[in-house]
């Protein structure tokens, strides 16, 4: 280990009254720390920050000393986020901002910009720069304005200053309000022309800043797309840059295009994006001169929730290429001379991007499975890194959305056992994604359902209902909901007993989180769907009074739509199977009112559900001389008047239905159901 002595002496020398000594010490320290993380740490330990900060804060510090001190700040900031935070806490920001004011020495201005650029390279420091944003933006824009019109833009120092100013502007854009601050100060009009100046570094900096400025901001995306430059709109310029010879420019242009595309602000260039940007990114996956991580992330972002873009990606060979990249990361994993952290990041990004690309289309999922995707997913679920596990689960969730794949390849993949381990993982992110994937493996068509039941999935899910994580509880309920569809009576009984009707009814209470309540209502709907086993269990557990109160609560106008829909079908299931239980519904005025009120809901799904309830209630008939009353079989065997006609008529149901029949604006599914309900009524006298 080298002696600290000479370095401590250099730090000591910074307090010398002789400016030449101070300058020489600063210069030595600067040359020692640039590039060397070890030396940076050493000078942090020697408490260099207060010394440098003090030199910058003094009004009479010589410019040359300032340049060296500022360069030290810049280099120390490159060490990492903690170092940058320590520098900001040391109070260097105000000095640096004052050193980029118009009229400052050009070299000092450049050094200060470099320091600001380095300090603002991290999420934490970018966020904490809030108080300085308003003072920084005008100075930075003035640097861009002054330099961009200069005939000497190619002069190395001028070029560096404008590039750095542009980069810092982008780094400030980490919140929507800051994006607007930068845009409203006139950045858009200044930035777009820089894309055409033909200086690659400046073009890359400008593209990065446009990307930060437009990220997830529809208003700014539209403003950017509307600014013509030399008669061309930004999407056209970006598409041209997506074909530039410099791969970094191609990548950054594609990232900007993704932002505009996601905000639907690409001005009708969707087809061009599919035919230019997607293949450009696909080609960059194989380019050694750009970071594969950023390319994969850009593809994932561009394809997010855009089925056509996903197909374009598949056609450009992206699925096979990303799987190849994942395979490479797998083979490098744990090897010597490999940046393991980066390797993990790439693998994780690969799984996430693939998940996005296969999220909508059957063709894409098939392509992924043909390229052995499932085998990589199974192995990734056992990876030591939790981020990779979670990403693999997310990808699995989307792949197994496919019924044919679920029926065939998935059953032989060996995915169930690792997934069942991960649903009980101690990391929330892994648990959430694993349970979400499990949902899609438990429907009646999945061959893995039986295997899961053998692996005691019900006990696992019951355990997860106690999770502190809302999304895990929600996913566990959803799994139970899927398990209850088309299952044999014995297993249904077992599930009902293990889960506990009382528990499900309790969590369908209005106090529960909406997503939990929705799934609890879905479970109750499915429990009662196929026979009266579930209805009996509910009434046995709660009694008639509490049951109808719960049902009324589910149909409350304040309840969110998905829960209402489950509530309506639960009511329908109870009403249709048994006249005895229907009696409780039909005679409960508040519940019946709630049903009738939803008949005219503008949401067709709700209206259809409510009409099914009316239909089921109306289906129970009075006994006639020819027949006898029965407690079972809703619509079977009775020839008399509808038993609950009076209750329905008190609420004017027939008039409501007749009125709806004449409403041409109603969708066909609602009108069909209205007609079915009216079959129980004689036509109204005109």
């Amino acid at each position, binding site marked *: 280990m080298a002696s600290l002595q000479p370095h401590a002496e250099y730090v000591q020398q910074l307090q010398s009254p002789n400016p030449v000594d101070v300058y020489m010490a600063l210069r030595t320290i*600067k040359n020692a720390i640039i590039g060397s993380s070890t030396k940076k740490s050493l000078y942090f330990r020697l408490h260099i920050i207060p010394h440098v900060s003090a030199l910058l804060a003094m009004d009479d510090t010589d410019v040359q000393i300032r340049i060296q001190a500022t360069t030290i700040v810049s280099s120390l900031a490159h060490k990492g986020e903690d170092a940058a935070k320590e520098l900001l806490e040391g109070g260097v920001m105000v000095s640096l901002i004052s050193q980029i004011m118009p009229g400052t020495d050009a070299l000092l201005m450049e*050094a200060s910009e470099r320091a600001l650029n*380095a300090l603002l390279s991290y999420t934490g420091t970018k966020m904490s720069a809030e108080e300085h944003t308003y003072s920084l933006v005008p100075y930075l824009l003035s640097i861009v304005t002054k330099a961009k019109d200069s005939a000497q833009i190619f002069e190395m120092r001028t070029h560096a200053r404008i590039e750095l100013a542009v980069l810092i502007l982008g780094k400030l854009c980490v919140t929507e309000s800051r994006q607007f601050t930068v845009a409203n100060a006139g950045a858009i009009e200044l930035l777009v022309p820089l894309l055409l100046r033909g200086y690659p570094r400046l073009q890359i900096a400008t593209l990065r800043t446009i990307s930060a400025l437009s990220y997830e901001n529809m208003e700014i995306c539209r403003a950017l797309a509307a600014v013509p430059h030399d008669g061309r709109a930004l999407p056209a310029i970006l598409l041209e840059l997506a074909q530039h010879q410099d791969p970094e420019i191609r990548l950054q242009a594609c990232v900007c295009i993704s932002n505009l595309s996601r905000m639907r602000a690409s001005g009708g260039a969707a087809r061009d994006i599919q035919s230019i940007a997607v293949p450009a990114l696909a080609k960059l996956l194989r380019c050694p001169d750009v970071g594969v991580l950023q390319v994969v992330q850009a593809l994932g972002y561009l394809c997010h929730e855009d089925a056509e873009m996903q197909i374009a990606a598949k056609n450009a060979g992206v699925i096979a290429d990303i799987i190849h990249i994942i395979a490479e990361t797998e083979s490098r994993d744990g090897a010597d001379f490999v940046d393991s952290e980066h390797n993990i990041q790439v693998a994780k990004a690969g799984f996430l991007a693939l998940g996005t690309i296969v999220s909508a289309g059957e063709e894409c999922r098939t392509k992924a499975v043909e390229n052995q995707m499932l085998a990589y997913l199974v192995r990734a679920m056992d990876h030591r890194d939790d981020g990779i596990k979670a990403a693999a689960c997310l990808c699995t969730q989307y792949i197994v959305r496919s019924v044919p794949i679920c029926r065939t390849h998935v059953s032989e993949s060996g995915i169930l056992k690792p997934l069942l381990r991960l649903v009980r993982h101690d990391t929330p992110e892994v648990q959430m994604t694993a349970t979400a994937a499990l949902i899609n493996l438990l429907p009646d068509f999945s061959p893995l359902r039986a295997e899961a039941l053998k692996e005691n999935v019900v006990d696992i899910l019951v355990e997860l209902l106690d999770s502190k994580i809302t999304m895990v509880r929600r996913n566990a309920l959803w799994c139970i909901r899927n398990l209850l569809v088309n299952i044999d009576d014995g297993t249904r009984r077992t599930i009902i007993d293990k889960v506990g009707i009382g528990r499900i009814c309790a969590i369908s209470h209005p106090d529960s989180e909406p997503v939990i309540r929705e799934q609890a209502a879905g479970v109750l709907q499915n429990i009662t769907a196929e026979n009266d086993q579930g209805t009996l269990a509910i009434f046995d557990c709660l009694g008639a009074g509490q049951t109808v109160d719960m049902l009324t609560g589910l149909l409350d106008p304040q309840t969110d739509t998905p829960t209402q829909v489950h509530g309506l079908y639960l009511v329908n299931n109870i009403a249709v199977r048994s006249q005895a239980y229907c009696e409780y519904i039909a005679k409960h005025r508040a519940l019946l009112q709630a049903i009738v009120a939803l008949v005219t809901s503008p949401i067709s799904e709700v209206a259809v559900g409510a009409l099914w309830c009316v239909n089921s209630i109306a289906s129970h008939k009075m006994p006639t001389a020819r027949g006898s009353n029965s407690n079972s079989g809703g619509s079977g065997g009775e020839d008399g008047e509808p038993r609950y006609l009076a209750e329905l008529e008190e609420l004017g149901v027939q008039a409501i239905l007749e009125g709806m029949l004449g409403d041409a604006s109603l969708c066909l599914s609602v009108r069909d159901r209205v007609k079915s309900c009216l079959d129980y009524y004689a036509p109204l006298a005109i």
Partner: protein
Amino acid sequence: MSEAPIAKSDLNQLIMNYLIIEGYKDAAEKFSEESGLTHNVDLGSIEERMQIRFAVQSGDIRAAIERVNDLNPDLLDTDPRLYFHLQQQHLIELIRQGKAEEALEFAQEELAPHGEEHPELLRELEKTMALLAFDVVGDSPLADLLDFSHRQKTANELNAALLAAHSQPKEPKLPALLQLLAWTQEQLDEKANYPRINNIVNAVLEPPATETAAAGDSASANTQRT
């Protein structure tokens, strides 16, 4: 083919590009003056770049690093591979001078921690450190590290990084075009008789010959740069 229009200004641009990238500042200034070529390159920066290159070629890595840090202090902080290669070259210079103890100390203090942070560089470090195991390094299988060409390689890498930082192409266009010419003629040789450039010094299109050894001539001319 000989009638294909080639603008004089395009040829001038190619030459200017070569002079600038390769660092012939005086020639570039003169050529710019004589050809009346307007350029968008900071000629002043060429000299600084050439001084840095010269320092590396002379084995004075410390001086080169200091100059780089004055010119663009971000460069070595943001390009760990380049920084490593400069430090590696310094280590090689210490070994060349027989300063084994100093070399060992330098490797432990500077290069090893850097290698730990960037494991992909460790293989190169191991290879360089192996030089210390030989009494007569010139006879070792790693003697190529001590060759002048290794300094040249490091100097080229640094020059390319400085050029890229200034939005300049990393390599001149002219050698790449000559390589393309050689490759194209090689391809054509197998398929057709055509007017050929057999000597790139005079660049005269010669009529098809029955036998030619010109492809080899062109290829050897093209490899002179490296």
